């Protein structure tokens, strides 16, 4: 798993675009020319200049603001493309329902003024993320409930979802809440709802093995909690948390993933060359498929395919290592770093 929003925040500054001196060239923003790694895109291929992009992208009347935004979007997309090529192994660790076993509807839990739900502890090593895919509510009667998500590192609500639980029917609603250790450093997550104002009772899990929780890969620590007297949609005092065995009619479907985001953020310069090459590949591909018609487009297009694919077999044309091959070589180096091959064993037959 890789957080697109976190990665996008560093992608644009990692490698820079060079400002063209051509009088018709759009003036690039300071962020667009910034290059934390010291690399520039047109160093990978002379076809990959900002002015060339301006003349091959599909809007002849593009404004400066639109063009700068376009360059940023190209870079962000290319960076995700690089990361998806490097981190190809299955990152999914586990998916499970917190409570897998069936329950009955003959016992309810009396409402009072409190926050009830779960405390979720994510491993602090930042390389694992959990996702609450769905929240499932079990109420004796039909009841509208607002499910709240908090993190102890933040006073305000993180997210919420409105669910209308059907009477005596497990009601499922997508939440898609990602929980990790780097979004709110060192915080604990809480998912639950406020009980004041509710008229129908939540179903009690008191049948056979219905209150036996699964362990979701063994990495997550999920405990049912209650905060008595709490009535606000803000983070409560953790000293007031009471750990309980009641689930208060709430079940969660949770997935666990390996998360590479922090690894990338703390080693971003290692990805600079591959980003530079991926953007060059994407731009040269744009050139070869451009619907524009002008001198730069014509001259660039005639060389684009050779630049992409290179030349090894045609003796009439100088040998050239294409952008694709250069990118693949760079990706291999990155994979060797993050997926090192162990000791190779060879046997004689």
């Amino acid at each position, binding site marked *: 798993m890789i957080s697109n929003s976190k990665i996008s925040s560093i992608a644009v500054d990692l490698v820079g675009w060079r400002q063209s001196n051509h009088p*018709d060239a759009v003036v690039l923003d300071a962020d667009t020319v910034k290059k934390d790694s010291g690399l520039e895109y047109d160093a990978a291929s002379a076809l990959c200049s900002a002015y060339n992009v301006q*003349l091959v992208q599909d809007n*002849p009347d593009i404004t400066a603001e639109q063009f700068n935004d376009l360059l940023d979007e190209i870079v962000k997309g290319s960076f995700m493309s690089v990361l998806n090529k490097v981190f190809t192994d299955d990152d999914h660790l586990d998916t499970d329902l917190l409570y897998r076993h069936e329950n009955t509807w003959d016992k309810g839990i009396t409402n009072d003024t409190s926050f009830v739900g779960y405390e979720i502890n994510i491993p602090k090593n930042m390389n694992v993320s959990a996702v609450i895919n769905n929240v499932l509510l079990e109420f004796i009667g039909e009841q509208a409930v607002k499910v709240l998500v908090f993190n102890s590192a933040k006073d305000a609500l993180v997210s919420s979802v409105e669910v209308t639980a059907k009477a005596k029917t497990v009601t499922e609603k997508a939440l898609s809440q990602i929980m990790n250790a780097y979004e709110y450093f060192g915080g604990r997550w809480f998912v639950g709802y406020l009980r004041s104002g509710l008229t129908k009772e939540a179903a009690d899990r008191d049948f056979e093995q219905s209150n036996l929780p699964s362990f979701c890969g063994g990495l997550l620590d999920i405990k049912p909690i209650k905060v008595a007297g709490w009535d606000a949609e803000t983070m409560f005092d953790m000293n007031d948390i009471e750990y309980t065995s009641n689930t208060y009619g709430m079940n969660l479907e949770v997935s666990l993933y390996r998360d590479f985001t922090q690894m990338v953020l703390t080693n971003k310069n290692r990805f600079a060359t591959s980003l530079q090459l991926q953007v060059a590949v994407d731009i040269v591909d744009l050139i070869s498929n451009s*619907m*524009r*018609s*002008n*001198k730069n487009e*014509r*001259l660039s297009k*005639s060389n684009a395919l050779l630049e992409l694919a290179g030349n090894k077999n045609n003796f009439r044309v100088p040998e050239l290592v294409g952008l694709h091959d250069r990118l693949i070589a760079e990706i291999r180096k990155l994979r060797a770093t993050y997926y090192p091959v162990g000791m190779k064993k060879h046997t004689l037959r």
Partner: protein
Amino acid sequence: MKGIDIPIQSQVDIFKDMWTGTDTKVYGRIFRNERDGNNVPEALDGNEYKEVLIDDTKDGICFFDVRPEREINGGSHTAVVDVYFAVNLSKLYPSVTERATEYMLNDILKHLQWLKPLRIVTGTESFATWDVKAEHNMQPFFLLRIETIVNYKITC
């Protein structure tokens, strides 16, 4: 300036005036240069050649191609000059709702003063000498060539 460049440059100035306020480019006499096995029209810009075919960043372009063979009649010469136009009709005639090709022709012929028109050729056939695509002549774009004849004197 000498020879055929005199009437051509005078006509260039008239077309530039005609298109004042638009983002058009009028080149004078171009040269047929071979690039990668193809003939490409190029204008001399200082010491550099500049290719002058369709440019979608402009509202329109125009250039003059003097045919290689010219007749000599005593002290004067006669040359056939093809005047090429590649324009964006929506940009040049924004208030016209139909395809404004006839508006374009009307304006050009009204302002053609230094060269005598012989024939009008429209569409991709007009640019048959150069490398163009069908979409270069589809709305709002329009391709046009006017074959003209010009008499001029070479003063030695």
